[in-house]
């Protein structure tokens, strides 16, 4: 096994399980749809709130996608094979996040024009929303995968992963939604995007090592 073959096989597995990706996107759309139905469907409410609604729904969908990443690998023993493969485990975890990010976030971005129309997001803020998703979601994945690795050996872990990981998502949601809101009212937003990027880069450095520690503890 090499790093490239690992990445290829990861992507192939995700491609063959298209239903998972479709489910995550459907879940995302359903959560978004809850807000106009449940709270208020007037454009006066939806327009300023749309960034926050989309981000909260995206966070939940990503958590659903990330919570069981290692479950199958743990059960069929391939997680152990990764640990003993002689390749650098943090690097493998990094590739895993890359594959997962591509397979979850790209479909989310593809449905974004539809949703922004449904939530009457001002057209000027649309590209800012896309940018926040692009630079902010890697951080969600990098933090989430630590929680997923910690609970890989547990049978019922979805709730625990949410409890562990959601508090860490607060600052990301705050900065992302304030960037969208700033764009809507014409304020500068590049500083907020830079904060998001900084958090993603920080977690990129930090998380693969923590995930590797957690994986080693889980399989031994």
């Amino acid at each position, binding site marked *: 096994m090499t790093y490239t073959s690992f990445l290829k096989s990861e992507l192939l597995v995700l491609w063959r399980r298209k239903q998972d990706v479709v489910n995550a996107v459907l879940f995302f759309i359903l959560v978004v749809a809850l807000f106009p139905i449940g709270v208020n469907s007037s454009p006066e409410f939806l327009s300023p709130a749309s960034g926050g609604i989309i981000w909260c729904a995206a966070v939940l969908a990503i958590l659903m996608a990330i919570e069981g990443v290692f479950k199958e690998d743990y059960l069929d023993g391939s997680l152990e094979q990764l640990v003993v493969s002689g390749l650098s485990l943090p690097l493998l975890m990094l590739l895993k996040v890359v594959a997962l990010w591509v397979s979850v976030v790209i479909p989310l971005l593809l449905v974004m024009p539809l949703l922004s129309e449904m939530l009457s997001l001002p057209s000027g803020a649309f590209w800012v929303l896309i940018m926040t998703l692009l630079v902010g979601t890697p951080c969600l994945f990098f*933090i989430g995968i630590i929680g997923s690795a910690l609970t890989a*050996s547990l049978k019922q872990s979805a709730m625990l992963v949410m409890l562990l990981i959601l508090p*860490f998502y607060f600052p990301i949601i705050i900065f992302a939604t304030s960037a969208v809101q700033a764009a809507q009212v014409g304020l500068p937003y590049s500083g907020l995007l830079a904060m998001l990027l900084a958090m993603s880069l920080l977690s990129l450095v930090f998380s693969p090592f923590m995930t590797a*520690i957690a994986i*080693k*503890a889980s399989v*031994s």
Partner: protein
Amino acid sequence: MRWVWFHKLGSPKYFYFWSKPLALPLFCLGCLCLAVGLVWGLVFAPADYQQGNSFRIIYIHVPVAMLAQSCYFALGVAGFVYLVWQMKIAPIFIKSMAPIGAVMALIALVSGAIWGKPTWGTWWIWDARLTSVLVLFLLYMGIIALQNALDDVVLANKATAVVSVVGLINLPIIKYSVVWWNTLHQGATFTLMEKPAMPAVMWIPLLICVVGLYCFVASLVLWRMQSEIMQREHRSSWVKQEVMYNNGF
């Protein structure tokens, strides 16, 4: 300077006998300081010129909020120590400290809400400091939940250590939230270098309360760690001897 004493503290047995005589004096000192500080602050200190008597909750709110952050800092350091040097005592410390920290964060939130009602006119506001302390409380609860969910001791140790270290990122956010964001919460009451803006008769009891609560929490942690050590090492002969001796056999 030799570091042997420090390395010895990593051994549960040595730590047990080292900490045993410390806990009770610390507890007494903590209670004494808390009693003196609280009575002085709540009864004898003068009322604030702006907030009247409602400011007096500062003698509970500030020490508890400081402890909530200090406990998490200690948790993060212990997690780091465990991940790097695999000291056996570190996960015992994390397990003993997490519930105490959670209680401190909860009291800080509740006392802050009670203080917020007369001064800001609201129990809760989504201000940066308040939200980040709420996140701190949730982090504590997450660590406790993770610790309880994992049956495998080694995995539980590693897992809580990892979360403790990752959660350290929240501390600078809490600390500087009042500086970075222009929010409702007031700035720091104490700073290490400058003279406090309050008159001495108001801040000395506060200082006594803070010191008292640190001692109080330290003694509680030592006791919890001692019982945790007993539980984890229950197969070893020294624990059997200790239990026999304590029961008068």
